């Protein structure tokens, strides 16, 4: 049987489906920011940005950018009514203290038990930079990863053990990918859903690891 990968927008919509009304959410730099465009109508979600914003709104109209009002990726954003500012130590206390419901991050690799590698490829001579990645990984009540299941070379990014430098241990609860949604548990992977036409055995073959049935 044939199957079609979720597009980036379809994947963002899939993540957004699982975000509940009233949730406090941090969307990581890159692909996770797309999730904001797909939140179901009629629910209120408060977006957190680690540089000191709750109630972050979408990008401003062209010409209305205010570079004192930027997101963690340093792109201009807006503030929704009810939004607030606070300093960095408070912002990370909010995160580390487990007050955020959901954090959605990109990843290089995730292990079956939820170890995350997303800050460094460990490449010699590269300039290291971690930002808030390690704080985000372990801070929220639930950390979700949003990524393609396979690298461009076809290797699974879901692995038995991360070969890239770790961001956090056992911190990822779910992986939302272009082919399937998986739960990471201390016992290993568990299927939540997969794209139509993709057989369970084929998914396990692509990942190279056993995946417990949904």
């Amino acid at each position, binding site marked *: 049987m044939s199957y079609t990968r979720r597009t980036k927008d379809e994947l963002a919509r899939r993540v957004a489906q699982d975000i509940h009304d009233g949730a406090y959410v941090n969307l990581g730099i890159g692909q996770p920011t797309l999730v904001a465009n797909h939140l179901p109508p009629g629910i209120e979600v408060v977006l957190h940005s680690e540089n000191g914003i709750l109630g972050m709104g979408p990008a401003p109209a062209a010409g209305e950018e205010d570079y004192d009002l930027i997101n963690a990726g340093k792109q201009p954003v807006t503030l929704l009514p009810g939004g607030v500012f606070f300093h960095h130590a408070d912002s990370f206390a909010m995160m580390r203290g487990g007050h955020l419901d959901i954090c959605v991050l990109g990843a290089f690799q995730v292990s079956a038990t939820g170890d995350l590698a997303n800050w460094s490829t460990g490449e010699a001579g590269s*300039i290291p930079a971690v930002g808030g990645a390690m704080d985000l990984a372990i*801070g929220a009540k639930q950390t979700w990863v949003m990524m393609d299941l396979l690298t461009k070379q076809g290797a699974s990014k879901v692995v038995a053990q991360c070969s890239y430098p*770790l961001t956090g*241990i056992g911190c990822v609860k779910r992986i939302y990918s272009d082919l399937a949604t998986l739960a990471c548990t201390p016992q290993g992977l568990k299927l939540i859903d997969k794209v139509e036409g993709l057989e369970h055995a084929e998914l396990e073959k692509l990942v190279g690891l056993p995946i417990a049935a949904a």
Partner: protein
Amino acid sequence: MINKIAASVAEALTGIADGATVLIGGFGTAGIPGELIDGLIDQGARELTVVNNNAGNGDTGLAALLKTGRVRKVICSFPRQADSHVFDALYRSGQLELELVPQGNLAERLRAAGAGIGAFFTPTGFGTELAKNADGSPKETRVINGKSYVLEYPIFGDVALIKAERGDRWGNLTYRKAARNFGPVMATAARRTIASVYEIAELGSFDPEAVVTPGIHVSAIVQIPRVATQAGGFKAAA
């Protein structure tokens, strides 16, 4: 009478010694005290340790300070940016030491310094390469109630340079939007804190419920002409 208003940037920055640890506010270009950094370049202190979230954008501000060769070490969370070429070149050629700190640990280490905390156990970074000391030895760890933590120490500043929005002669400060970022916590962590402000407020004109940094944490404020914060630090959309 208390009057913390300095007549000029140069007056506010007198006495910064060689070898000082300088905390510099800002995240990307928001909250970067550019006028104070330019003043520090003119002031001429050398062998500095600079603490900032990033390590400079383009060729101005912090990047210009690095370019003078007067910075020995940078403590930051995210040096690599789209336009961080000054840092990149100095780091690759071994002329600049880097201590990479997860952003939340950076903020909390500054907070600890300001709050008189000797050290603290944080879950951030446990089991990673950043739970190691500069010499590669592991940092102290502890399991508390079944959860693993790393021991982290405060970062004290000799001086903090921060950008605020308004200030009064007692040094009370408010900020503007997300330019607040590290300012309030750095103000508490340094022996001497200097804030640039766009407006001087009459003493008593601030709503006391809305002051963000109480003047006890501020040594000097200096008024600078208002300019719009510029973009920086990210890749422009293709």
